[in-house]
């Protein structure tokens, strides 16, 4: 059944849904022959990422390629097709008490290929890293419609170049990811999340204390008042009445988690109002924290990278900009979310200011705004080498052309 879709305001594009790699290969070959563009679509939850398309072409839904190929649970790896939804993957792994410890909003729609292409991450990245640490094998279709692979199915392997890393975060510009092998982690036996409500003048002190803490948090998310309200309301919990809320997460065996909760109270108890949620009572807050990444009401979302030590100052300054602010504080990543009241002028002005002290990109805004706003920011000094890699992988420029950094 032929369908059409729009991508980031561009379209209509006809969309095809191949159900085998061979069918997908035909689609790629046809595009290559006509030098028309190909736009891979996973769950479609993040198609607005990047610069809007400008070249006519074809959208390709990955939903038909969603099989589980091999799940040797005792080896703690899984090989699946890229169109599988994160929900299905998660449920499959959970049956063997395993998981991919990457936080993904809208798990019932987002696909594995989509989160790898977009390099999705969330609050647990402090404890568990990002997708580059878990993708150990990958297959993709190249510009000629031929499938190629890199890595393998074992957790330790240095044979050949690690093209898994290159495709992770490539936003679909180097080929269409068809199959992935992941390294897995056990589900945590116990979890806890502690909220620390405090005033502005305590934020840096608490973060510095936590940096040297005897405990080993796996999440250190800092929320301003607006963000805290959204997260706690979503979790159906009373909203802490404070300018800033720090959410500290722990996972591990029961002894380790309960010791850490008590230890944290000792270490920072006098600096903030603490509230601990352990085991299943922590779940709603975890879920809300993950889903906060992508809320329906958001009109503008900026993402900034900086050193972790700069986060407190940055956030305190940015608090005036009217955004719901959330930082993965120990990773130096800050997100600002604006809802309906955002204007283009205001966005341009904020973007300029944020870029003075951080690397900032736009992860969501109106498609029309992107005519004025620079989505990716100034190219870094390795942009030419990225273009070189793109030119070697996709000489006809058919995969998501023009959507990524540096005109890639």
């Amino acid at each position, binding site marked *: 059944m032929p369908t059409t879709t729009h991508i980031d305001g561009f379209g209509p594009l006809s969309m095809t849904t191949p159900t085998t790699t061979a069918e997908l290969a035909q689609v790629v070959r046809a595009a290559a022959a006509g030098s028309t563009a190909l736009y891979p679509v996973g769950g479609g939850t993040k198609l607005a990422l990047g610069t809007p398309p400008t070249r006519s072409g074809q959208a390709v839904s990955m939903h038909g390629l969603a099989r589980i190929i091999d799940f*040797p649970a005792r*080896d703690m790896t899984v090989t699946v097709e890229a169109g599988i939804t994160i929900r299905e993957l998660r449920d499959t792994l959970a049956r063997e008490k395993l998981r991919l410890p990457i936080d993904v909003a809208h798990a019932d729609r987002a696909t594995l290929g989509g989160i790898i292409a977009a390099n999705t991450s969330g609050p647990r990245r402090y404890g568990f890293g990002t997708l580059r640490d878990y993708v150990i094998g990958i297959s993709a279709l190249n510009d000629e419609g031929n499938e190629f692979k890199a890595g393998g199915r074992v957790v330790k392997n240095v*044979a*050949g*170049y690690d093209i898994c890393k290159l495709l992770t975060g490539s936003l679909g510009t180097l080929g269409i990811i068809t199959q992935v092998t992941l390294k897995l982690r056990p589900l945590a036996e116990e979890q806890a999340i502690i909220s620390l409500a405090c005033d502005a003048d305590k934020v840096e002190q608490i973060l510095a204390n936590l940096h040297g803490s005897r405990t080993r948090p796996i999440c250190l998310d800092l929320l301003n008042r607006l963000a805290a309200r959204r997260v706690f309301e979503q979790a159906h919990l009373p909203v802490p009445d404070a300018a800033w809320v720090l959410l500290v997460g722990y996972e591990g065996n029961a002894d380790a988690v309960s010791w850490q909760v008590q230890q944290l109270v000792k270490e920072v108890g006098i600096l903030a109002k603490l509230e601990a949620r352990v085991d299943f009572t922590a779940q709603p807050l975890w879920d809300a924290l993950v889903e906060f990444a992508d809320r329906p009401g958001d009109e503008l979302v900026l993402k900034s990278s900086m050193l972790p030590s700069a986060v407190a100052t940055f956030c305190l300054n940015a608090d005036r900009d009217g955004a719901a602010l959330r930082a993965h504080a120990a990773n*130096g*990543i800050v997100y600002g979310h604006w809802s309906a009241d955002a204007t283009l002028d205001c966005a341009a002005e904020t973007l300029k200011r944020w870029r003075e002290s951080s690397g900032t990109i736009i992860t969501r805004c109106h498609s029309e705004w992107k005519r004025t706003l620079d989505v990716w920011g100034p190219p870094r000094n390795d942009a030419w080498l990225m273009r070189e*890699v793109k030119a070697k992988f996709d000489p006809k420029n058919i995969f998501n052309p023009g959507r990524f950094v540096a005109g890639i």
Partner: protein
Amino acid sequence: MTSAATTATAPKLADRMRAIVGPTNVLASPSDLVVYECDGFTIEKNKPDVVVFPTSTEQIVAIVKACGELGVPFVPRGAGTSLAGGCLPIGGGVMIALTRMKRILEVNYRDRYAIIEPGVVNLWLTNHIKPNGYHFAPDPSSQGACTIGGNVATNSGGPHTLKYGVTVNHVLGVELVLPDGRVVQTGGPHEDNPGYDLTGVIVGSEGTFGVATKAWVRITRNPEAYRTLLGVFESVDDATNTISEIIGAGIIPGALELLDSLILQAVEAAFRFGFPLDAGAVLIMEVDGLDAGLDQDAERIVEIAKRNNAREVRRANTEAERLLLWKSRKQAFGAVGRLAPSYCTQDGVVPRTKLPEILRFIRAVGTKYNIRIANVFHAGDGNIHPILLFDERDADQVKRVLGASHEILDECIRLGGSVTGEHGIGVEKIDFMPKLFSPEDLAMMVRLRSAFNPENRCSPQKMLPTAGACIEQSKAGRHAAM
């Protein structure tokens, strides 16, 4: 295609190099060059025309530009501990030795990174930051000698990779001099720089993309405590089942090392730890992290080991006992010298649950070729290191060792694994690449290399097979390893 310097051009090449780095930083006499004709892989040898010891990125830029003008190849070299022939100067040319670029440029504890020059020895960094309770997580057994530049190039592992990951998981950015002399910085101390993860592909590129002149690496806090257990098993199968069950129970130990009976004899003779000589295998099982959770994990490990017929499970009760245990493990290779005049260590990987199968296979191959094979390896990762014992003065034994090695690696592939978990492809395993990868896969790897190293003047004929570059191996090296 580039060619080696001839007797006519070599002096000119050396002069060019002296002009760039000064006469004290150049070696060109045949007797000096002998040291550089091979690395830890000694089967293939070839002298470079000249060895240069630059002290700055600018000098390296000038060196590679000169190589370009003169049309000679070059190869980077760290400490030369590669076990795969990564430093072999195929076609001669210039060897760029990075051992004089050895400064730790910055350590930032608050933001948990360090910036180092490539010649910094792995253990120096850890020793430097130890007083503050930090370490550099990748810990190859060669860490007292190998350089971080070499670790970055080979994506090194070590006993602690099961829990902490390999080198690539700890590298945030790289400064690289490309073969045409352009300098690029990929990544850096900030996370999530937009664009391709070029750092991720530079790590593990085995010196074929350019010369790494700086690296931003993550530093890791030391674990608060350890529990170290020694499980004694009647059979290798019981030991490997224990490994799978520990991990299946959701426990990720800091290290899980297996020693079989042959290696136990050597180690016991050397260190007198008190290993039972009649055991089929022992497992060193160490959990680390917060003191609070460790007893719970340790108790479960003991339970699992007992359930899998462990004859006994001992605990290292003091730090001294723990250190002796680790010493026995880490110096196991030294002890192998007691078993045979020569030995050759292989590096293969199988899915963890295939360990019993591959170990049975190794035993059978040993019998078939009449070669004794000892095993001591990172069992938690499925990364095997069979040590083939022989006498290199006996040509027939050498041939049998090579035959046995190849059969073992082929079996790793058949079981769904890989021919190298940490030592790399280099020149040693180049013939296995077409067995692991299809022509399409290899073609994409060539495309990637051509973005960095289009003329293949940097480390030519490494990692990726090229038509007609097949190496005939007739001698097995006396490798130290693992």
